[in-house]
Structure formats: structure tokens, C-alpha cells
């Protein structure tokens, strides 16, 4: 097993082991890649997934465990390499096979792909106290101003000129 400690924060995860985190990070980067703007990895989506698996999404732990292993296995069968070390186009080929359920050795492939895709996107756009959307990267990317108290203007056909905000407080100022 290759150590990834100096490449990613994998060591700090609660549920994912370093090898799993590395595969998931590589998947996240293909689902919502960094381009001229940051992507899922920079937004902390893997951290979001780990935190979720440690709590509300505990029921998905074995799907992740088996699925991530199956991704590496399929990468080996198809391209004779570890998933995280494949070229982007090869990674996309592996993931497309999962998406369409064409992975003979893993019958939950499509379910796994849908689940991971959904969770990674959640990790980009969540309220940041769930461990993703780091520095509100996700909200900045799409132009969502976050948990604004309200909007004094309807902003019809003009960009919303408000910095995104995040809060965990219920803002009602009543008794």
C-alpha cells in the first residue's frame, strides 16, 4: 500500500483508510474536476463523505468499502494500474463502466456510482459545517449566496452582488 500522507489529508479521516481515501479523492476529481476553477477535491468533498459515513450515512459504509475496492480491481483488469494512477481518460472509462453497471465482479456498481456521485456533489455544495464546501468554494462557483437572512431585492436579470454567507444559528430573534 502506497503512503499518501504527504499528498492528501487522508490520515485524518474517521472512516476511510488512506488507500480508500486516495481512490475516493481520484473519483471525486473526475466527477467534478478542478479546471481553471477549483473542483470537488479542493472543496473538501472527500472530507464531507468521511464525516457523513461516520454519522448519518453509516449505512453506506460497506457499499463504499466494497465499491472502492472494486474500482481499483476494475482499474487493474482494464488498464493494469491503480485507479488513482491512471490517466484521466482511463479513469473516466472505469467510472463509466460503474455508472452503467458494466462491472461483472461487482453487482452494485451502478448503485455505488450513483451514491458516490450524489455524495461528492453534496460535499461541494453543503453547508460548510458538514465538512465540505471549504471556503464556500461550491457556492462561489455557481453563484449561490448561501444562507442569506433574506433578499431585499428580487434580483431580476442581474447577478446577486452579495458575498456568500454560512451560519449554523437559527436566526429567529424571538423569545
Amino acid at each position, binding site marked *: 500500500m502506497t503512503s499518501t500522507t504527504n499528498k492528501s489529508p487522508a490520515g485524518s479521516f474517521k472512516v476511510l483508510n488512506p488507500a480508500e481515501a486516495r481512490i475516493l479523492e481520484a473519483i471525486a476529481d473526475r466527477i467534478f474536476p478542478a479546471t481553471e476553477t477549483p473542483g470537488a477535491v479542493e472543496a473538501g468533498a472527500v472530507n464531507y463523505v468521511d464525516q457523513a459515513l461516520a454519522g448519518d450515512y453509516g449505512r453506506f459504509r460497506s457499499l463504499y468499502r466494497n465499491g472502492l475496492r472494486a474500482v481499483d480491481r476494475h482499474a487493474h483488469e482494464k488498464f493494469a494500474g491503480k485507479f488513482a494512477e491512471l490517466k484521466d481518460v482511463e479513469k473516466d472509462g472505469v467510472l463509466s463502466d460503474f455508472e452503467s453497471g458494466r462491472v461483472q465482479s461487482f453487482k452494485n456498481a451502478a448503485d455505488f456510482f450513483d451514491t458516490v456521485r450524489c455524495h461528492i456533489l453534496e460535499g461541494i455544495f453543503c453547508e460548510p459545517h458538514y465538512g465540505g464546501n471549504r471556503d464556500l468554494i461550491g457556492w462561489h462557483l455557481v453563484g449561490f449566496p448561501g*444562507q442569506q437572512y433574506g433578499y431585499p431585492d428580487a434580483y431580476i436579470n442581474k447577478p446577486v452582488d452579495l458575498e456568500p454567507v454560512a451560519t449554523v444559528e437559527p436566526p429567529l430573534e424571538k423569545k
Partner: protein
Amino acid sequence: MTPAASVADVCIVGVGATGSILAKELASAGLKVVGLERGPAPRLEDYAVRDSIKFIARPEQLDWVKHEPTTSRAKLGQTAELRYRTSPLNVLGGALLHWTGQVSRYLPGDFKLYTNEIQSGNAERAGADLTGYDVIDWPLTYDDLESHYEKFEWEFGVSGRAGMNPFAGPRKRGYPLPPLRHSAKMELFAEACSKLGYHPYDTPAGILSQPYRPPAPFDTRIEERPACVYCGHCNFYGCHIHAKAAALYTTIPVAIETGNFDLKTSCKVFHIDTDGSGKATGVHYFDPDGQAQEQRARVVILCAFVFESVRLLLMSKTDDGSFANGLANSSGYVGRNILAHGDVRAMGLYDDFIVNGFIGPGSAAMRIDDFNGNNFDHTGLGFIRGGTIGTSGDGTPITRMDVVPPDIPTWGKAYKEYFTRYYTRSFDLNMQPETLPHKANRVDLDPRHRDRWGIPLPRVTFDFHENEHRLQEFMAGVGEKIMRATGASKVWTERKATPNRWAGGTRMGADPKNSIVNEYCQTHDVPNLFIVGASVFPTMSGYPPTATVAALSYRTAEYILRQKQWFA
């Protein structure tokens, strides 16, 4: 089990929209009312947070959802699977806590489907195939409910403009508040509809457009609430400033203030008790510690939503005698003919227009009724009935991340480019086509799955049939046409309907042989047992049920208060 407490005048099972209205009305008139709510009383920090992971991504984790699942299947004979639902919200105040707030009175014609559609020959002219359907008239009319609709609108606070919708039934009084501020979606939709010759109107909204407290002659004990700030975290969220019409901070505090309302939360009713004379005597419930308790009452009112009201009636069957098939079920119709809208959608993207659809609330919407009910000529269309069409598509990125045109991949660089460009440049039209009562659609007791008390879960069997398929297809087509007329650069539709807004299961009717309750929501079989809620709808409309459910609650309360001899 502790000995039975004293006999209440009224025991209300389920304190949501209906239960809270009944509690307020009956307790205010001096009746001693006990309210048993299976859910907890939510705290501000539980519901007033604008948290899209909590309410949109993981609703099955909510305390108010996870303990009361149903099972679900499409067809009789299939094995039903567990399904967590957010429509019966198991919390004090019920689903009004997180509803969208679309307050529409039914059309006068919506109450007479048998007369208007079948007897009149309309279905035949349309060429509709109604095999398997079981359509009856409501035993009441729009006029019977008019003053009760009004009471709901003025007590909870509704924003709208009377006279805009040419298809609406007559009303004696306008709305208490002007419409909500117009959003880009509303403007685009209204312009397109006017161009096409349709009749757009502001959706009457249970969201305050201005600070509001009900004036006399309505209930002035209800506290003033502030105007909506358009935060956009609305549908499926509790309101952080209480601008949304919810029972929790309107009817419930007033009911408690009377001193006649004994509210017990986290109390799960599991049996309705009857005596040898065929009358209800009270209920049994599990208290918060899991101990079985008895509550005796002169009148029992089930306000537990479609699934639970049916389940309780079936659970309360007696070994022999008139309730052997379940309580109030001499007709065999308990659980039958459940209904749900089959929503379809049309989506639009704009290259040259910024929509900012996340600015709420969801019920700040424009709508047309040109294709609702029987408002258009159905000759040769192959179906009867219709639905409303209105703007939607509010929501955070979590809500919108799966709204992707069919020619764009759902992941990768192309998806990222799409979503980052169009999140602020898109919205949807939502079509709410009505569903006809069908004999195969029902709720019964699941033979495999039980809840944490060991009680069989309600099993929902529901599918759309021929009339719905044709109507949904038609409605999607109209939506697509309107969306194109808004000038959208790209338009696509979601034509596979998902069931939304449940009703039916204990329907009202004039004939005890094919219905459960009469026009006052009183069961035909048990004179002191009432069922109030969408479950009494024999047919639905293109509108959401809430306004009609609330109107029925006020009307039932009036009826019960007229029966003075019951409480002497």
C-alpha cells in the same frame, strides 16, 4: 398500565393542521380536549435552520421522519419495500411546518366529478377509458365550504389577489394580504402565458407578504407574525422568521391558552376503543416512556393523515361483530381509493437571462388554471380532468444539482461547466395533474414490516393508470410549450410522474355502502368517531389539498359544537 384518567369531551389523534384547528375551535368553546401527537414538539433550533443537508439531502434522518416509515409498492401482489416519507411530518404542528404554502380553494366543479364528468357524458366525449376507477361525488359543495376557506385564509394569513383567476369559485371576501413580491420566474411565466392567451395569476400563498395579525371577526388571539424576507429556504424547511403559515405558532398556542387543551406530544395512539353499543369510548396510546395508557373521550377525532388514520381503523378491528373488518369499515372501503398528484415538470435554461431561482419562497409563484379541472374542452383528448401549472424551481444547489438536461452528462467537466453556468439561469414549471380514484390504489397493513412498537406498518399500494398517463403526458406538453414561450434557450421535460400530496383512504360520500364518512367527516358506522384530513377526499383536484383540509376542519368543528347533547 395506569388506570384511565377522566373522560375528555374530545380526544384528537394527531395535532397537525387539522388537529390544531379542531383543538382551537373546540377548546375555545369550552370543551375539554386532549390532543395526542405521536411526534415531538420541535424546538426552534430543530426547524429554523436553513440547512439543505438536513432537510433536503437527509430527511430520512429527521426524528420526525425516521420513526414512522410506510412500506410501498406499485401493484397489488408485489412485495412492498420500506419507504421514508416527508408528507406526514411526525411532529407537533405537522406538515405545515415545512410546506410550500400553496393555498388554493378547490374549483366548484372539483366536488362533483361523478355528476360533471361521467353522468354528463363528458368522459365519453373525451374518449376516456375509466376502467378500474371508482368515482363518486363529494357529499358537499364549494358553497358549503366557502366561509371555512375564508376563515383559514384570514386566520393563517394568505397573500394573493382575488379576481385574477377567472376560473376560481366565487368568494365573499378577498385575501388578507397583497401578493408576494414577483420573482424573475413569475415575470417570465406571466409574460409567456399572456402571449399564449392563458390567464396567469399570483398563487395564493400561506406566506405573509406584510406583517399580519388576524383582524376581527377572525381570531385576534393569533399572534402577529412578520413578512417574508425571501430567504428561499422554504419548501421542506421550517420558517426562520415564522412568515410561513404553520400550526405550531398560530393555532396551537391559542388552543393551549384556552386552558381546555391538554396537549401530549410523543404519544403514539395504537388503538381506538369501542363498546358493545358500537360507540367509540377513547383510545389507547404509548406515552413517551413506552407505557401503554388509556384516554377516554366522548368524541374521538382522527387527524392522523392518510396512512395513519387508515392504519388505526384497521388496527382497531374487533374479533367479531360490526367492526370485524376494522373500525368504521362496514363498507370495506377503509384504505381504498388513495390519491396523489402525478407531478410532471418542464425545465428551462437561459443564455441571456439571470433568473436567481434560489430567491424564495416557493409559493411566490404564478399559475394558470386554463388546463385545470374541466376548464378546457376535452373532446377526443382521451382523458378527463387536468391540473394547475405554475412556476417552481427554487432551491439551493443541493436541491438543483440533479436538474440536468438529457444531452448533458451528470458528472465530469461538462457537468461542472453546465451547473456553474446555469444554476442561476434556470427554473422549472410544475404541473400538478389530478389522479382519479382507482380500485387498486390503497393502504392496508403490511404483513412483514412493523414499527418500533411492533405494530404493522401501513402498506401503500399506488400506481398511475390510463387516465393519469394520458393527462400527465398532455400536461407535460403544455408545460413545454409555455417554457418555450418564456424565451428559454433550452427546454426539456420530466414526464415520469412521481406521486405527491396524498389523499383518500377514508373517503366521504352520501352512501354508507361505498364511503366511510359523511359531509361532516363523521363516520357512517360510529357516530362519535370523526376522521378529518385529506383522507376523506373522494376525488382530488389539480390543487394541493391543504386549504380544503383546513376548511373541512373548521366545518367539522362547527358541526361538533352544534351537538350540545353529546357533552351535556
